[in-house]
């Protein structure tokens, strides 16, 4: 049997007082796809950065193909045949594909020879692996899936035998993810070794041969994929039993709380993103909007929240007609009983440098409950923040801490606590669990269902189809700015997936 592609022996790494990796032992067999799962902050990315020479381990040994090696920088990793596809692409967005592939491996001081070589090599890779790409395309014009392909090509161009992918599907559509897995399987068939880091269990089960689970900086288990299941892996990741399915009773929808008629919304460039959309959300039900990111869901949410003026259409909130074309603003909608958990918690939901207690009342800071005349009532704010911290199990439980220092899942809980605790009649939620750990996802899902059972109307937007199918009572599928179909959550993933891709179900059936 061939020597393992990578062996890690006793790797430890700490950043100040934080021990990111503790005595890691890991063996990745050559020619396999090895998954590494764990919650955010479990130390997966740190470990991979050590293999790629981005960080130095404090202790331990790395062996590549049986040989002990030292990897002081990325160059050394590349020289040992290790390539990495980072979670945030390491691409220069206004460069062409060729320039990006060439960067750092230009061959000579002048570029011409390198450009010719890269083109020839890209053609070869396209022939051999089916990795099609236009070498002259500019990165920022390419869809995310192709940008990721450029990252893979970069690694292959440098002669990578071992490919590390860090959360590769976070930004991909289900179809793009499947395509990526196809590429990975093919690379494996050609003898390459692949390390796949993710927190999505479905992917691990779909594509890997073996899987190691990390928790709090340690590897707690390694399993052959064929001999494990999602439940066991989730339990290993979190350290306790986790409910993967959302437990909920039958919905009891009452009167319509939010009615949207013929809504059209343009984006900031004037391109229509939401086209003549009509639907309603009743009190006591969760309506999920499924769709590939960028098909108008964001603009729809923003228009309903009063952030982005619509072009035309009408909105009826709790029986009151409102003009979404400039007649509403977020404060007004909030006062009328609508709360909004924005998709992008960093850009819209939170002010990261603020203290937790400040973010916990953001947007409601004019409420007399938090104010003494023109001044903020700091002790009232603290009491309020501490109540929310307790109710939502926000960790660390410190309302004075800068929000940036909370993990993604806890930041999301801060936003959810703020919007849900106001007791809105209508709740808009965008991407409630993006970048959130398995444990926190379970909690957030339970809260959303609890809100529904209290008789509130919930409009849920998520690019995670599993989430939509698990939570929603009715699913609307958005494609190219239109609602192209309504399905019950029992509809198959394939059926909804086709709608998301813009294929009419009738066409597909024939």
């Amino acid at each position, binding site marked *: 049997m061939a020597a393992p592609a990578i062996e890690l022996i006793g790797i430890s790494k700490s950043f100040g007082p934080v021990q990111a990796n503790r005595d890691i032992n890991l063996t990745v067999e050559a020619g396999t796809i090895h998954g590494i799962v764990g919650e955010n902050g479990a130390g997966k990315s740190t470990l991979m950065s050590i293999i790629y020479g981005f960080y130095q381990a404090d202790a331990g040994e790395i062996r590549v193909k049986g040989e002990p090696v030292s990897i002081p920088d990325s160059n050394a990793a590349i020289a040992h045949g290790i390539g990495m596809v*980072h979670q945030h692409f390491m691409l*220069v*967005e206004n460069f062409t594909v060729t320039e990006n592939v060439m960067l750092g491996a230009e061959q*000579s001081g002048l570029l011409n020879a390198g450009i010719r070589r890269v083109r020839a090599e890209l053609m070869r890779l396209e022939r051999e692996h089916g990795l099609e790409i236009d070498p002259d395309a500019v990165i920022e014009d390419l869809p995310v899936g192709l940008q990721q392909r450029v990252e893979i090509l970069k690694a292959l161009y440098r002669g990578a035998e071992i490919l590390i992918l860090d959360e590769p599907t976070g930004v991909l559509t289900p179809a793009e993810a499947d395509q990526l897995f196809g590429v990975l399987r093919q690379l494996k068939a050609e003898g390459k070794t692949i390390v796949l880091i993710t927190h999505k269990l479905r992917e691990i089960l779909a594509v890997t041969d073996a899987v190691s689970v990390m928790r709090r900086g340690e590897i707690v288990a390694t399993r052959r994929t064929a001999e494990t299941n999602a439940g066991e892996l989730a339990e290993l990741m979190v350290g306790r039993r986790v409910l993967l399915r959302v437990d909920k009773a039958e919905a009891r929808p009452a009167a319509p709380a939010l009615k949207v008629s013929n809504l059209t919304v343009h984006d900031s460039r004037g391109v229509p993103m939401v086209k003549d959309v009509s639907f309603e959300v009743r009190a006591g039900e969760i309506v999920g909007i499924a769709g590939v990111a960028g098909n108008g869901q964001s603009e729809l949410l923003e228009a309903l929240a009063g952030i982005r003026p619509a072009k035309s259409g009408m909105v009826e909130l709790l029986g009151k007609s409102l003009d979404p074309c400039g007649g509403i603003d977020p404060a007004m909608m909030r006062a009328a009983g609508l709360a909004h958990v924005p998709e992008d918690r960093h850009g819209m939901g939170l002010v990261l440098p603020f203290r937790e207690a400040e973010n916990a009342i953001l947007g409601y800071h004019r409420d007399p409950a938090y104010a003494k005349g023109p001044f903020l009532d700091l002790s009232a704010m603290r009491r309020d923040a501490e109540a929310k911290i307790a109710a939502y199990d926000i960790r660390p439980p410190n309302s004075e801490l800068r929000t940036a220092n909370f993990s993604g899942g806890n930041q999301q809980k801060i936003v959810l606590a703020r919007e849900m605790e106001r007791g809105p009649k209508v709740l808009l939620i965008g991407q409630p669990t993006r970048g959130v750990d398995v444990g926190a996802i379970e909690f957030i899902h339970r809260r959303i269902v609890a809100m529904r059972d209290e008789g509130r109307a919930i409009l849920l937007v998520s690019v995670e189809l599993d989430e939509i199918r698990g939570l929603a009572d009715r699913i609307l599928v958005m494609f190219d700015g239109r609602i192209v179909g309504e399905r019950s959550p029992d509809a198959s993933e394939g059926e909804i997936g086709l709608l998301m891709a813009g294929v009419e179900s009738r066409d597909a059936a024939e």
Partner: protein
Amino acid sequence: MDFATTLNVLEATIRLATPLLFAALAGLYSERAGIFDISLEGKMLAAAFASASVAAIWASPLLGLFAGVLVAVAFSLVHGLASITYRGNQIVSGVSLNFIAAGLTIILGSAWFGQGGRTPPLSAGQRFGDIALPGAEALSGVPVIGPIYAQVISGQNLLVYLAFLAVPLTWFVLFRTRFGLRLRAVGENPAAVDTAGISVTWLRYRAVIICGVLTGFAGTYMSVAQAAGFNRDMTAGKGYIALAALIFAKWKPVPVLFACLLFGFLDAFSIRIQGLSLPVVGVVSQQFVQALPYILTVVLLAGFVGKAVPPKAGGVPYVKER
């Protein structure tokens, strides 16, 4: 305007555009690498002072140039230290360098030469002299082209020609060499450069050093070629105009040439129409004419350039993420 006046204005345009060109190209190298440099002004001033002092003492314009470049590079390294190594705020560092240059040149000038901050006037041999290009005499008889060649193109000094040669050279470096590819990359996404196994720090230092060399040329040109000695605050905002030209040109070398020529022309034109009585408006006030290039800069930047997108990583110190 008759032909002779036009030639005069064009000739002045070339002369006035030269320091802008050096400085704007200097800024281009630095900013394309992700280091915003508001201290072009201060570096030019310090270089102008250093070169004029050395040229006066050792009677050599080349030694003056050497001193000017040296001082400007030293300023650049301070800026590099603050903004690359210590990840400080690039605007604050740049502004303080401008203050240091303004103050230091006056203090040292007064202390060394006792002429109220001026350096001793330079004689012809201590300055860069005009160079007659071959064929200028012979061609001067040819209508239109002859006088343009003889008066506008020929008969400038060495530094003028170097400035104009620096444009194609910069284009070549930026778009046809490995260094240029990496330089452009580090200004857009330093993490991509880092993960490709290239040192972000060293790359950015090289960029600011080139910036220093070119601002050294710019300053030297002003005091040892265009004028005959250093006056206090003689750069008079040229560094900022160069920065405006750089933005106007969207950080591209060839458009930088045209932007600098445009600003040079406005400058030359405003000198020309001072005190003249124009039809309709009458005598234009001197203050207005002097403000004209700046007003046009604002108008051009605000209205006609469209969106000038700076290098994406500009102004942001590079820190490895966890």
